[in-house]
């Protein structure tokens, strides 16, 4: 079987974090003897990504998404397990590898603050050894797509956050990386800027067929861009598949909204509870969560019994479904640690001088 472009096998990363207790006494004690907590940020991830895929990493804060991207870009090396990207082991940091990928972090700035972005781009041209013609062509293309032409000669510190993010993206793409890691590229941006960046990424990825891994908290980013979604929580993959599949696989609920012609009374609400739980109720509408298989029978019964003006059957919102998945993961890990199965984060407290 040929190797996937990005391949992770049982990848693990444990950090050691200094545990300081409150107060001066503890601080002084900490000078001599320190307690460290082992935090397992990534607990064995297996993943294959093929060339040309656009994959989203979803997960709550601290789930291990960014750690995974850092591992793949070679900034940190793993505690156990292996990974290859385009045949390279990232944490060896070979120049050949570093020329072929890029990492953009929404909260980190790579451009020279006091100079126009143009100058940082020139530097990138030299660092990555980009031919002058190719460089000019790529820069023209990117700045047209992102609408940056007029801003190239303005000092970076004078740009808006959205403009700066576009500059960061441009800088990252100048050397035409084959693999792009994006860590929350739209964080803190307004809706318009977010949309612009989504549109750009979509267009660029489809045209260049590059491979992109993206982490984001904005479901809109994910829905707009990624066919494949990997949910990471608690340092492990909880789901790997299509976006629509999340709903099919993780919930068997549908939302049914009914608009009644007659006023809604307590009796009516009571009888509706037979079919499912009431999510929301504001006369003349009632929104019910109903088990998928029960929907047809329920609709028949209700249409028979009441005068209905309007009717909507829909999937539950993605955010909710995913939040449910996250919540379920943290519940299981909490129960397991209560049972002594030790999967929670702070299992090994070691001491070191």
């Amino acid at each position: 079987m040929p190797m996937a472009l990005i391949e992770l096998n049982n990848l693990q990363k444990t950090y050691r974090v200094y545990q300081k207790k409150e107060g001066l006494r503890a601080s002084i004690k900490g000078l001599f003897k320190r307690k460290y907590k082992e935090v397992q940020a990534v607990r064995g991830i297996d993943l294959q990504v093929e060339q040309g895929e656009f994959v989203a990493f979803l997960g709550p804060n601290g789930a291990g998404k960014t750690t995974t991207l850092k591992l793949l870009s070679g900034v940190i090396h793993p505690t156990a397990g292996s990974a290859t990207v385009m045949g390279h082991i990232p944490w060896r940091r070979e120049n050949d590898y570093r020329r072929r990928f890029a990492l953009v972090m929404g909260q980190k700035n790579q451009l020279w603050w006091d100079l126009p972005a143009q100058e940082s781009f020139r530097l990138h041209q030299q660092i990555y050894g980009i031919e002058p013609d190719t460089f000019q062509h790529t820069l023209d293309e990117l700045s047209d797509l992102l609408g940056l032409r007029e801003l190239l000669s303005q000092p970076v510190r004078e740009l808006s956050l959205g403009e700066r993010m576009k500059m960061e993206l441009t800088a990252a793409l100048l050397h035409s990386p084959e693999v792009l890691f994006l860590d929350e590229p739209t964080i803190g941006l307004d809706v318009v800027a977010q949309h612009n960046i989504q549109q750009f990424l979509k267009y660029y990825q489809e045209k260049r067929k590059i491979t992109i891994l993206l982490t984001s908290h904005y479901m809109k980013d994910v829905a707009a861009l990624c066919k494949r979604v990997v949910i990471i929580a608690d340092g492990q993959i909880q789901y790997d598949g299509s976006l629509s599949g999340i709903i099919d696989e993780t919930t068997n609920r549908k939302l049914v909204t009914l608009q009644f012609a007659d006023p809604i009374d307590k009796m009516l609400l009571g009888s509706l509870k037979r079919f499912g739980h009431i999510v929301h109720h504001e006369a003349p509408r009632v929104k019910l969560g109903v088990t998928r298989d029960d929907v047809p029978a329920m609709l028949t019964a209700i249409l028979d019994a009441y005068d209905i003006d309007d009717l909507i059957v829909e999937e539950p919102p993605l955010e909710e479904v995913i939040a449910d998945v996250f919540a379920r993961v943290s519940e299981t890990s909490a129960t397991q640690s209560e049972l002594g199965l030790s999967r929670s984060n702070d299992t090994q407290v070691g001491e070191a001088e």
Partner: protein
Amino acid sequence: MTTAVSSSSSLSSRAKTWWTILRISLEERFVYRGDFALGTLMRFLPIITQVFLWGAIFAASGNNAIQGYTANAVVAYYMLTMISRAFSSMPGLCSGIALQVRDGEIKKYLIQPIDLLGFLLITRVAHKLCYYAIAIIPFTLVFYLCRGFFENGWPEATVLVAYGLALTMGFLLGFFIEASLGLVSFWFLEVTSLVFVYNLLNFFLSGHMFPLDLLPEWANQMVRLLPFQYLAYFPAAVFLGRIEQDELWFGLGVEACWLLAFVVLSRVMLNRGIHRYSGFGG
């Protein structure tokens, strides 16, 4: 310097990279031209106190010369250490590295095919060139006005060559010492107190405050075993002709050894530090 770009790239393209970095950091420096001009001017104020201080010391001692230094020679010495320091001092280098480690900006050098030390060295050369470009005017003026303190006039050509070498190596030595200090931040996030101690030692042991040959023999011997003298005293003493011919080349040789030692040290620290960073931090 060591390779900053891929080993496969030719020498000329590497030179081009360095040139671009240099040019861009020059541009960056000139953004702060006001700060420069003021900083440069303020540097000369201590001369006045030195003139009065040493005038008083010589008057009180009743001697014309102390250890072969006349009052004029001490002021000349002091002015020359200002030039030494203009080469060897590295404002913000150590704390800059520490800051980059702390806020994670160091990642840039792990992700991009570029070498941190080489990059910092080039940007530092740019800082210095910028500084000299502006400082040459007041320096020339002050040295012209104070030419009377230089009783021996210009030194001979070989001494001038040695002086140039001493200054250049002083710059590199200052850079690699402070870079090594800054790299300590891979192990201890806070290096401010370390920098403070270094600056203090530097102030006294480099001869920035007074000529090192005024020290008692035993102290002088000890100070000579340390690298600090090359940051201020040595170049100034070379210019003033206080170092004999054969001692001169020996001194430069020792300076080169110190330089090499700190180049190697900073390189090893960078490699270990990155290893540690990627193992624990991120």
